């Protein structure tokens, strides 16, 4: 018999290394003699979209297109350390370092422009298409390249360092401020359990993620789909099968992860509640998108067939056994 059930899971997650561990990202911004903008930072693109979304931050600040940003990343010879791509920290931490470096460079460009164009401190300036322009008087303008040609070597180069707020927890009292910031998320699923075979299908899925600010909504949706699939594998398939210390499922014939045919159409809802300490309010969501999914699936199984599964993955064998036990 096929039985349907619904379940939800909710979560909050502290991003960054946390618990007082120094969490530091560095970025260097510069304008070269051709007037091109380059930003460099050691953040790694590991498929999560750092290369794209981090580059959007200086583009926003300097009034240029994202594709015009020369983003030098990963290369340890040319970039400064920005920590690991771990703890869902790059958007927040390296994003902040890149924002600070871009803003500092912008202030330098403003100051040089005022000097060259003989402008007072009060005259408002706008940045557009690699130019600094006096607002309301576009005849007064100067390009990044012109500024670079009058500047000394090193004048248009700035390094900024961002360090996240984190304090070690007091082991006695549990007090402290181990993580900053936190993200919040929820997941709802509907499952159909075959009570004769113990197999289950996820028939509906919804995933809601607080992101602070969606720097790149499409990339976030990609992360949400990926996180859901990963969690689905975690909940239903992935098993190292350790017997007396030996990993028996040591290859992908035995250690199963979801295929495209197993993937579920997930309804994705992005919640934007800007975080005051974050770059444009944006927080990392790499790990958070995975967290509420397995609890939601287990709750849906309970709703469908009345059994509480306490060990994952929920294979048909385990589920059928549990169903038989409750009769």
């Amino acid at each position: 018999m096929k039985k349907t059930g619904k379940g939800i899971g909710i979560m909050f997650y502290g991003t960054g290394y946390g618990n007082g561990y120094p969490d530091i990202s560095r970025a260097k911004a510069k304008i070269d003699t051709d007037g091109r903008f380059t930003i460099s930072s050691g953040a790694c693109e590991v498929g999560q979209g750092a290369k794209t979304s981090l580059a959007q931050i200086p583009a926003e600040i300097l009034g240029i297109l994202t594709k015009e940003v020369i983003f030098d990343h990963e290369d340890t010879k040319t970039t400064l350390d920005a920590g690991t791509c771990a703890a869902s920290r790059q958007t927040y931490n390296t994003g902040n370092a890149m924002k600070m470096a871009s803003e500092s460079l912008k202030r330098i460009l403003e100051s040089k422009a005022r000097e060259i164009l003989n402008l007072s401190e009060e005259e408002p300036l706008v940045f557009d298409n690699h130019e600094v322009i006096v607002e309301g008087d576009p005849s007064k303008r100067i390009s990044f390249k012109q500024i670079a040609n009058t500047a000394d070597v090193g004048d248009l180069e700035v390094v900024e360092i961002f360090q996240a707020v984190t304090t070690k927890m007091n082991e006695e009292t549990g007090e402290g401020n181990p993580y900053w910031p936190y993200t919040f998320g929820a997941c709802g699923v509907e499952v159909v359990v075959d009570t004769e075979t113990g197999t289950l299908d996820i028939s509906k899925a919804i995933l809601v993620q607080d992101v602070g600010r969606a720097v790149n909504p499409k990339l976030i949706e990609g992360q949400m789909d990926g996180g859901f699939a990963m969690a689905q594998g975690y909940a239903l398939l992935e098993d190292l099968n350790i017997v007396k210390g030996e990993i028996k499922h040591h290859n992908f014939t035995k250690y199963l992860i979801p295929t495209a045919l197993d993937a579920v159409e997930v309804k994705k809802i992005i919640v934007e509640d800007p975080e005051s300490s974050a770059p444009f309010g944006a927080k990392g969501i790499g790990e958070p998108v995975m967290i509420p999914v397995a609890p939601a699936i287990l709750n849906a199984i309970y709703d469908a067939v009345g059994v509480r599964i306490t060990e994952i993955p929920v294979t048909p064998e385990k589920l059928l056994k549990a169903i038989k036990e409750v009769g």
Partner: protein
Amino acid sequence: MYDIEKTYKPRSISSLLDAMEETGQEGKIIAGGTDVVVKLRDGALTSKALIDISGLKEMQFIREIEGKVQIGAGTTFSDIEEHDLFDGRLKGLKEGAMEVGSPQIRNAGTLGGNICNASPAADTVPPLLALDTTVVLCSKKGLRSMKLEEFFLGKGKVDLVPGEFLYYIEFEQMTREQGLGFEKLGPRKALAISKICTAVFIDLDQDLMINNIRIANGSLGPNSLREREVENILKGEKLTEALKEKAQIKFKEVINRRLKGRRDVDFKEEAIRGIFREALEKSIERAMEKSKEGIQ
């Protein structure tokens, strides 16, 4: 790293037979390579010669001759998947073929390979057994045929003598009031070795009398096999809910007896009931579909 010293690519049956004669016991036939290559890499195959039949057109066909369906051993799973002969009452065979691996594997892997590899989990074998398939073998001595069921000699073993290969298989084309159903239980929806795969052929008249039924299983024994004890419960009886349940209970008993002492017996004896039921319902649906057409 491999022991292979020679490779052959015959373009005709006669040059295939020559290559087999020349290489003798050292020759290994490779078609899609989806099992042979894996074994080579694992060092589980030490043949000195490979005979590649993937380009042998004479072994790639799906045809109907005098009320029989014949499928060449070199026919790929994708060929079966795409052929409209397997859209109606014979759909159970297509369903089995579509359960094999991934699209890439189905494009390369062949029906003959699935049979000759003799894995107990081969997805196309239960439908073929339920169709009472005959295998036609070829050697320099000529053709030899036998029931597919008798062709299997154990896990990984088939009744091929030196110098002989599987040429094609054949089974009777279905008449109306007949249907073939298939159901698989695997750990995920693709690229998974089946835990149970079951096929049911049914011949059902308009009064719901079961004139004939053949049931075959994979992954529930050393080879895919017919389930005659369950067939006997159903054959010649009128199809009712009570009868279906009786057959399910019998199935559980049969599997329990066969797998006793194995780690997965508790699961499989239960799950077979559901999988068999699905395959049976599909076969009935297909048999009835044809009856309706007959009335019109």
